[in-house]
């Protein structure tokens, strides 16, 4: 196995769509909960950044191979 094949195999092993999509969706879901929870205004303040990270992340990882 050549070095480039090993590198490609390593990349495809790490950058698979499934787990990363789950991470992005967890971020979006968590962000929405942070946005509407009545407990802490600090969580509310960071909610938008979390949702934005999740949404942008989702758009990126949805282009990863299966």
């Amino acid at each position: 196995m050549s070095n480039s094949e090993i590198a490609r195999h390593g990349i495809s092993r790490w950058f698979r769509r499934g787990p990363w999509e789950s991470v992005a969706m967890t971020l979006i879901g968590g962000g929405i909960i942070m946005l509407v929870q009545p407990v802490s205004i600090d969580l509310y303040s960071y909610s938008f950044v979390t949702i934005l990270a999740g949404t942008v992340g989702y758009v990126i990882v949805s282009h990863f191979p299966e």
Partner: protein
Amino acid sequence: MTTITQPDDAAISGMGAAARARTTRRVRGLSDRTIAWLFVAPTIALLLAINIFPLVWMIRLSFTSLNLSMSYLPLRFVGLDNFTDILGDEDVWLRLQTTAQFVISSVALQVIIGFGLALLINRQFRGHSFWTTIILLPMMLSPAVVGNFWTLLLQPQIGPFNYLISLFTGVPPSSFSMTGQVALAPWTIVLVDTWMWAPYVMLICLAGLRSIPDYIYEAAEVDRASAWRQFWSITLPMTVPFLMLAVLFRAIENFKMFDMVNLLTSGGPGSTTELVSITLKRAAFEKWRTGYSSALAIILFVTVFGAANIYVKALNKVKQR
């Protein structure tokens, strides 16, 4: 010896068609690709003008201090100030909580009632189609129409709703106002939204129920499983993906809810039923804080866009099933 090969008829006719097509293209002077682009171009132009341009303009405005009541002032770039203002504003936070309470209550009620109706409609009985149509009617009405006629129905002096309540409780009809009292108004918007959208949830659940193969129930009958057992072990688990779909779709729609609530209560009494969409409208068109309201609109847009991604993922899972 020279051999002359005769081309077959199909080849000749194929060549003829290709030559004709080439001539036609040359005469018109447009390739297939250009013609395709000509057809698609008006739609793309319309999309750019109606969707993309306002979005880009709104993003630009969200970084400015534009106030339309003082539009003579020069446009000042304020960076992320509008966003930090909103994300530190307790009033907006409270409005988002009100929205969440409305979403959770109405979606929960819609799922329970919609699923119950789907279980009823799934059975074959006399007048099945008639009752299905009657149940689906509210969903087909415009939210503006629904808001207006429920305002009349809930009117304390002449509205029949208060008379109906007084019939069962004995409370005088004009002694309470469903849309004017702090304790009742939030439940009123939940009630009207549920009345309108439970049929939609019913439709999705019905699709789920109809997708369950009969042989599973037949096998359960052979195993002498009770109706209750069949419901918990077959019906409910196999309808859950469809329920999830309904929950996500209704949650997204209710998060954006504006028209019906604006007509019913306008966010009142006080700000008891002020959903975040009404806060946005007030900031944009009553206080004329355009920069601030653009930033709030972007926050809501990103939230709905994120939730829509989850919805599409769930939809694909249901399709794969």
